[in-house]
């Protein structure tokens, strides 16, 4: 047997191993995929379906569920607290997302410039996004405290007056700006990433053709960041409308329910009034909004194409 023959036969042999391996490996693929899929169904999809199921029951006490049909929903529709929470949630979402978009896009444009320490600044601004909400609440409670807060110290020594930042008139504003301090960075990160992927030659070409900075923004920058801005806007609206932790930690929905959004109301109904069915009905209504947002996302952005090789 010549040497070339042995190599050739070995390759053929291995190729056949490969092809049988491929057949077996189809099984290997499913074996790898089933645990994650199973867990995903158990921890993500099932609870949402269970919440919908729960919303058709009076869940007073956990283990005794009585089917009540649409009663939880009909009583919510005639409940003033539900509607006021709904509108407060809308206001909170629009207010915070406006702040986040305006400052987020602005900061991204500044950080996209070339300057000394640009990388350091881009790193520093990441910090608020990664520190826990509870810590954000402690930081701003500490700064805005009525008696010992830094802000009131500054106000007292400049205008001779202190402000009750979590009183009825100011609570929504303080809450919204403190929340935006944390979440603006999400906008900055995604917009900055897109800005940095714009071909610099486009700017050069625009400059050579005499385009003013304003025209360069309208003709080059804006078309490139338009779609990411829409996406970020959509995601932030969904998340801010459904936010619970930062509101509960700052104000518990108060004072006088002035910051009670649907998320806060759902918590109160489920865990304080122990009406799990009503709580679940509220979160199911919130889920409809998430679903609507995701449909816009899937139709407009086709994100699934990113993983379809």
């Amino acid at each position, binding site marked *: 047997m010549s040497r070339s023959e042995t190599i050739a036969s070995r390759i053929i042999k291995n*190729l056949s191993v490969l092809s049988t391996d491929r057949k077996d490996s189809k099984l290997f693929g499913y074996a790898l995929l089933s645990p994650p899929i199973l867990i995903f169904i158990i921890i993500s999809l099932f609870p949402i379906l269970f919440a919908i199921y729960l919303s058709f029951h009076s869940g007073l006490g956990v283990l005794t569920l009585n089917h009540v049909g649409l009663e939880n929903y009909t009583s919510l529709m005639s409940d003033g607290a539900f509607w006021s929470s709904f509108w407060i949630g809308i206001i909170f979402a629009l207010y915070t997302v406006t702040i986040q978009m305006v400052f987020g896009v602005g900061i991204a444009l500044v950080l996209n410039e070339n300057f000394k320490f640009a990388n350091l600044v881009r790193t520093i601004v990441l910090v608020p996004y990664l520190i826990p909400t509870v810590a954000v609440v402690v930081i*701003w409670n500490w700064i805005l405290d009525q008696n010992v807060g830094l802000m009131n110290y500054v106000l007292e020594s400049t205008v001779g007056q202190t402000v009750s930042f979590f009183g009825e008139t100011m609570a929504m504003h303080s809450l919204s700006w403190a929340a935006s301090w944390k979440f603006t960075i999400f906008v900055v990160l995604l917009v900055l990433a897109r800005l940095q992927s714009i071909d610099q030659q486009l700017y050069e070409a625009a400059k050579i053709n005499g385009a003013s900075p304003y025209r360069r923004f309208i003709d080059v920058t804006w078309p490139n960041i338009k779609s990411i801005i829409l996406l970020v806007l959509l995601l932030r609206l969904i998340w801010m409308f459904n936010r619970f*932790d930062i509101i509960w930690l700052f104000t518990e929905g108060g004072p006088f329910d002035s910051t009670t959004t649907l998320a806060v109301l759902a918590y109160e109904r489920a865990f304080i009034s122990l009406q799990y069915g009503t709580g679940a009905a509220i979160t199911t209504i919130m889920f409809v909004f998430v679903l609507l947002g995701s449909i816009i996302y899937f139709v407009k952005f086709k994100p699934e194409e990113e993983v379809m090789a």
Partner: protein
Amino acid sequence: MSKKSKPVSPERYSARKLITYVLAGVTTAVFAFPVYWILLSSLKPVGRIREWPPSFITLDLTLDNYITLVTSTNFPQWFVNTTIVTVGNIFLTLSLAICAGYALTRYEIPHSKNLARGLLLAYMFPPVLLGIPYFVLFNSIGINNSYLGIVLAHASLSLPLSTWIMWQFFQTVPISWEESAWICGASRFRTMLEIAVPGVFPGIAAVAIFTFSVSWNDFTLAYMVTSDPSMTLMTVGLRDFMQGGRILWGDLTAGASILIIPPIILVFTLNKYILEGFSFRG
């Protein structure tokens, strides 16, 4: 066509530079100062923490607040709980996401498009939507007030995006690397572990950091699924310090600082992997 391609004048150029520096400086101050202020306050002696006027730069620093926090509150227990849950969630999410990401990239899986959408939809679920069903379900199967319950709840927040990230990263590893190993007789499992997985290291780092931040951050789910004080996480426990008439600023600033320091270290050491995780939408 007008030909007014005038070069940018030096003044205008430097004006733009100046404005950039001013705005970047203001931005840095707005985001960094509050963090600096809480860290500095936590290090001030108890008597000076509420001093009037406040001092912004001082060398009169002490660890007294931290010592009080560790010796006279339940904070150490909360720290241990958060650490166990965080490590558990990183381990669970990472192993599941790696398996799913590999399988989805290397095999023709039916309905993978719908699965991709399902992952993104689940990524958008706000924690408050999951809290109520988890509470009821965990109570009925008896895993409320357990590490397992909290880890599973946290995994619902970290697994969808993590699977998505790994799915994208495995596509950057050419299958030819593995094919040449198969020809040499290596098994599919071995090439996955020894060739494909090391090839997606940046993705693994991004997923680990993202999962860390989910568990380290979470308040909502832990607050809803636990009631036993021995299962309290740091985030839930710190809320107790803010309740009641007298706020314990020493404990509070020290506790918040302990929550803040690890993310700061991550940001300054592993910044590029954090950004990898974010670039998932390009």
